[in-house]
């Protein structure tokens, strides 16, 4: 019984390390921020969960494993949200986003919600002009 538990824990931790290594490789291999962020978010969620689950299995069910489980829950809440906010910032401030990634899906969504990107751009340009004239 003990040996099975050990093997299960070892497999989980090894899987987590594998995912972490893949994520590290991805972080340096990709060129653009959003792709790299995808890799980093993978490391934050899946690999840490696998490693911590391995530790939970290894130490059995007691107060320590409950705390480890709470850490997993916290990370699974916090990490994707922080990645989402970072990606949102990138999309907001990056002017050359359409050169770096495929925006067809975003355009389709805009059409469905009847948001015209060109109109938004026109409005922004007019506002800029007004601001320049005012000064």
């Amino acid at each position, binding site marked *: 019984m003990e040996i099975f538990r050990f093997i299960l824990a070892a497999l989980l931790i090894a899987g987590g390390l594998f995912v972490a290594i893949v994520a590290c490789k991805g972080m340096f291999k990709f060129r653009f921020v959003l792709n790299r962020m995808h890799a980093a978010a993978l490391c934050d969620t899946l690999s840490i969960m696998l490693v911590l689950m391995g530790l939970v299995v290894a130490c059995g069910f007691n107060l320590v494993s409950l705390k480890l489980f709470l850490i997993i829950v916290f990370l699974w809440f916090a990490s994707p*949200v922080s990645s989402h906010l970072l990606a949102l910032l990138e999309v907001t401030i990056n002017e050359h986003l359409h050169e770096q990634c495929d925006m067809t899906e975003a355009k389709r969504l805009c059409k469905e919600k009847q948001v015209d990107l060109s109109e938004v751009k026109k409005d922004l340009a007019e506002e800029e002009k007004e601001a320049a004239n005012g000064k």
Partner: protein
Amino acid sequence: MSKPRKDYEELKSVRFRRFIQGEREISTEVSMEEFQRQMDKEHEEDERLTYNYLNRPNVEMDPQADAKRFAEITGMKRFHKVYVFMAFVLCICIIGLLIYNVAYMPNYGSADAPTNNEVSEKYLEDGQADTGVVNMVTGMILQYRAFDTFGETHVLFIATCAVMILLFLKGKDEENAPHDPELDPEPDMILQTVARFLVPLVMIFGIYILLNGHLSPGGGFSGGAVMGAGLILYNAAFGFTKTGRFFNEKVYDILKVGSLALYAMIITYCLFTGANDIASIVPLGKVGAILSSGLILPINILVGVEVACTMYAFYALFRKGGF
């Protein structure tokens, strides 16, 4: 205007008081046209300066000439090289002194070293009986070296004061008004949903660390940092208007100054009783209970409040320049 009143208003003290209060005396002798002319003149002057600035000669500054001008302005013309040389010598001297002092330190792991002598033994053996804590680190920093921790808390207080001096914007005129709700970023729904769930957890965890400082690893500094992070998360999700309902400048002032003042009073009491060999009236209690170890628990709470306020103040000041 009656004569006594006019006399009164021409008194120097009255004028001075008005000047202090910021009331500008509007002279009725200056006509509106003259005033307009003056304003136009100032405006022209401004425009001329701006024009000169925008059309300034775009010449690459010669570094030698630049240095010469700098020397002329600062008056460091003659002794420039001497200053550089002296700075170099001073640096070398300080480095040499420090290295010389290192030579006098005991060898790593030697039996005479202060880390291995009776001081740490005394802390570990008598610590629980002296202070009534389970976590000896807390007992060290809040009982044996309480004065040192008091200084650290002051450092936090002074740091926020310095940041406030530099970044605090008082909302008197519209240009400097710190809060414009329209300029706040649009609240993100995902962040709000998660924050609604996470903020209470983070705060409870911070309070747990804070109150368990004498029983388990933790204490005022770490617990306060977690609580400050919870406040920052709430602010990032819901904005300054909602945070201001329970944590505004007034609350901040009361918490920050109040906790430091209470801490000072407790420390004074501890020093007084310790120096005069009087037994403290606060009982140490049963070792391991949550309400034990005398004054360490209140000190932990005060330090935690101080740290949480510091964290949040830094965030708020750097983001908006106010609370």
